[in-house]
């Protein structure tokens, strides 16, 4: 009696013909779902302090006060361009860390757009932002 020789599983060839098709489909998926986004912003280590406890220190420290629609630098009303120049004139980059602090005191109704712009100006002028919070 003749037996048929069993075909070993190892002999079965893996179909490779469609591999490149699958690969190209995956590429198309990645191309379509990828959105190239370059993140921009600024990094800052924010020390915070209570407004009432800081009054004596704030007398010496440059302070930016934000109100809805405007900014004050050391109690003088300034535009953002003027603020850039005033911060630049402080030459904070040449000072030690403790002397680079610029206090930021914002009113309740100040929006994040203005807050963000002023924070970026202070960071760009090599300042360390100190946020004043209300008790």
């Amino acid at each position, binding site marked *: 009696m003749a037996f048929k020789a069993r075909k070993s599983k190892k002999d079965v060839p893996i179909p*490779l013909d469609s*591999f*490149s098709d699958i*690969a*190209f489909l*995956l*590429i198309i998926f*990645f*191309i379509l779902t*990828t*959105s190239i*986004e*370059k*993140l*921009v*912003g*600024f*990094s*800052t*280590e*924010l*020390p*915070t302090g209570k407004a009432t406890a800081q009054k004596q220190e704030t007398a010496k420290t440059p302070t930016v006060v934000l109100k809805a629609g405007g900014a004050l630098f050391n109690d003088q009303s300034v535009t953002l361009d003027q603020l850039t120049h005033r911060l630049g004139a402080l030459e904070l980059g040449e000072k030690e860390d403790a002397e680079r602090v610029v206090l930021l005191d*914002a*009113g*309740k*109704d*100040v*929006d*994040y*757009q203005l*807050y*963000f*712009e002023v*924070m*970026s*100006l202070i960071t*760009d002028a090599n300042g360390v932002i100190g*946020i004043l*919070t209300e008790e």
Partner: protein
Amino acid sequence: MVPIASMGDIAFLLIIFFMLCSNFVKEKNVEYKKPMATDLTAIEDSGLSVAVDKKGEIYLDGKSIADSDALKSALEPRLKDKDAKDQKGRSVMFKCDKTLVKTQFEPVLEAIVGAGGIVVAVGDKKKTNP
């Protein structure tokens, strides 16, 4: 005849390239308008990301967080082991809608700082007129 034998290899190399270069967006469902400023520099995506959407809802790595206290509690264990000098390790991306007012975003900033994080504020570059 066009040689197509190596097409599969090329395709797989391209897939590997895309997979290594892609960063998956964590805050897919978070709707916010980025604030704009002129002097912004390129920043690296750090591991942690905090977002505040236009309704004032807080998200940590795309997951909704109840309030700023809960955010601080969630951040603390992830930042406590970081060395104080490890600026990159302590960086927390902060994405916030530009229309929100101080009472909505400042507690979030305080929570990040309170947990020992360094705020990396994300925005868009404002185009200046030549």
